[in-house]
């Protein structure tokens, strides 16, 4: 599944709802659904606020299902991240004046199994997240 959206805040709800609909075939629990929606919302919001800094741009959301695992990519061609480990530190934010809590990456990490961030200043950012669905029912 490939979804291309404009970097406007109205599309945050749209993106997470589309991804949630896409993974229903894996029969997720309500909790798993909420986890994935939160992670997608964080990634898309990051692209809008930090990647494009309020300017118009395109955000691509790619989703694939491999067995019981969903892989989600959120890609922008925004300003990129100079120091990825720093950006991923909980509570660290470059936009305290906008009341960003600095918890975006921390939530993506907490709610998904795998989080990978590829970025370079001036070349945009790609966030890859993976999560196995249905783990909890088995246990």
């Amino acid at each position, binding site marked *: 599944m490939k979804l291309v959206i404009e970097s406007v*805040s*109205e599309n*945050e*709800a749209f993106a*997470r709802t589309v991804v949630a609909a896409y993974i229903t075939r894996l029969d997720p629990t*309500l*909790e798993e659904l*909420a986890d994935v*929606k*939160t992670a997608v*919302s*964080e990634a898309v*919001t990051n692209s*809008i*606020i930090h990647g494009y800094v309020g300017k118009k741009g395109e955000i691509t959301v790619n989703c694939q299902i491999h067995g019981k695992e969903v892989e989600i990519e959120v890609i922008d061609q925004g300003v990129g991240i100079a120091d990825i480990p720093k950006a991923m530190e909980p509570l660290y934010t470059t936009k305290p004046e*906008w*009341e*960003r*809590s*600095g*918890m*975006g990456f*921390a*939530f993506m990490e*907490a709610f998904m199994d795998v989080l990978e961030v590829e970025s370079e200043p001036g070349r945009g950012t790609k966030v890859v997240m993976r999560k196995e669905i249905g783990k909890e029912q088995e246990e």
Partner: protein
Amino acid sequence: MMLQEKKCMHYELVGNCLVIYVTDDLDHHAVTSLREYSDGLIEAGNIKHLVFDFAQVGFMDSSGIGLIMGRYKKVMFLGGRTAVTRVGDVVNRIFTLSGLYQIIEKYDTVEEALQMLQKSNRKKEGKKK
């Protein structure tokens, strides 16, 4: 007091407590208008404590944490407290994970929150005498 309708929220003033009923999913988009509107109310004066009601909120991300913390800081300097009420499971996980419950209080109902906040008003007034 009449309930005022506004996008993403409506509110109620009870004494010096401002109750904000959030009526939409709380993401970056909703937070933008909610922040502006709630700050207008807080700055209009005579508000000490805040209650955010989450009965109609099915989703929240880290933007919601930023909103609550920002408003908490605004009233904290005047000795005000911040409470959240009727928090569902999804939102509760986000609050717990973020550590927000270390600074704000959670109550089952708006009435209970108001009772606790107004009780703290009376205690302080009592001490002054």
